[in-house]
């Protein structure tokens, strides 16, 4: 059994990551899930959240939007709509998005369709800020 995982992360716009990692933690649909080498084949959807992985005792963080993750033969394939490494996040922009979403949520009634959209935006902004605050990269 290999003692490393091959992590491939791609978005429609580019191949973001392709490396050997020791372990990773992903925001699965039903909850946070950790993956170590030798994991059984798995297919799961991801929600907006933080994906982190460990490589040579160093921790890296990536903010991911909707996507999914497949594990097979110690290869982890992550397909996501958008993903940003922690050093790529524009903190000011995320903060602005957060404020905007908060304002909108206060003024919108719950039944409004936009409510869901803004809620998702709020979540994305929160995750970005959370990831940007972390080191690594």
């Amino acid at each position, binding site marked *: 059994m290999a003692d490393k995982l091959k992590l*491939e992360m*791609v*978005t*429609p*716009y*580019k*191949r973001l990551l392709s490396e050997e990692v020791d372990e990773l933690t992903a925001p*699965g*649909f*039903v909850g946070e*899930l950790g993956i170590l080498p030798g994991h*059984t*084949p*798995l*297919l*799961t*959807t991801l929600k907006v959240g933080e994906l982190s992985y460990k490589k040579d005792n160093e921790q890296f963080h990536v903010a991911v939007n909707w996507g*999914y993750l*497949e594990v*097979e033969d110690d290869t982890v*394939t992550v*397909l996501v*709509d958008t993903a940003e490494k922690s050093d790529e996040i524009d903190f000011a922009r995320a903060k602005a998005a957060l404020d905007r979403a908060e304002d909108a949520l206060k003024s919108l009634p719950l039944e409004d369709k936009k409510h869901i959209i803004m809620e998702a935006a709020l979540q994305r902004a929160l995750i970005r800020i959370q990831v940007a605050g972390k080191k690594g990269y």
Partner: protein
Amino acid sequence: MPSLKDIKKRIGSVKNTQQITKAMKMVAAAKLRRAQEAAVAARPYAEKMQAVLSNLAKREEADAHPLLSKRGTGRALVVLMTADRGLCGGFNANVSKAAERFIHANEQGFDELDLMIIGRKGRDFLKNRLGDKIIKVYENITADASYKTAALIGQEIIDNYTSEKYDAVYVVYNAFQSAIVQNVTLEQVLPIQPAEAAAEDESVIDYLYEPNRGQVLAEILPKMVEVQIFRALVESNASEQGARMSSMDSASRNASEMISKLTLQYNRARQAAITKELMEIISGSESIK
């Protein structure tokens, strides 16, 4: 024999044309670089998607989800991707003809085939030939195709498919190979056809699905359609710029050739005129003697 003035005028006009074709070539080259990057960048995602899908197919029956199951041969939709602008060689005509051929041949024996066209040129080309089959035309979306646009079109296609308006969906586009080579490609989008599973005897361990099988399929399969549309869009855009660049390049070269030919003709005519004038002067002075 055209007069000196006529030739000069022609040289001037050819030079003007050449300037335009040269400028268009430069613009296309700049756009090509960006479009090519986008097309190449979109490939890993689509390929990974295919890989996941074929892994999935090894484990699932064909009728596990409506988007996977084969239906009859009622109506089919053909999505044709062309450019909004011309002056790019055979780019638009080739792909439009391929779509036309596909519809005429109708090898699967569909009762009815409809056309959805992306790009103005495809509509212009097929308006008179297959006008009654065109159900929808999208314009001005190829130039900077975003994933969002592709997702919207993908969603529309899926809606039409699940409501059983169509039993199959195909897409015809120019796949980008290099700046000079584009391959007209026809792909089946729906029902989704996973790449052939490799070896049958391979022991297949069941996937662990989270949250559950139905939900995972329901999320991934529509995604696949969107990705296919997106990929076709960016590939088509890159091909368009490549086709325009090479056709404008050859147009510029033809113009240079023409200019040198005309210049030669002009010089000959000038020389002939001078000779004639000299002869007239000489014969005039001879006659006075």
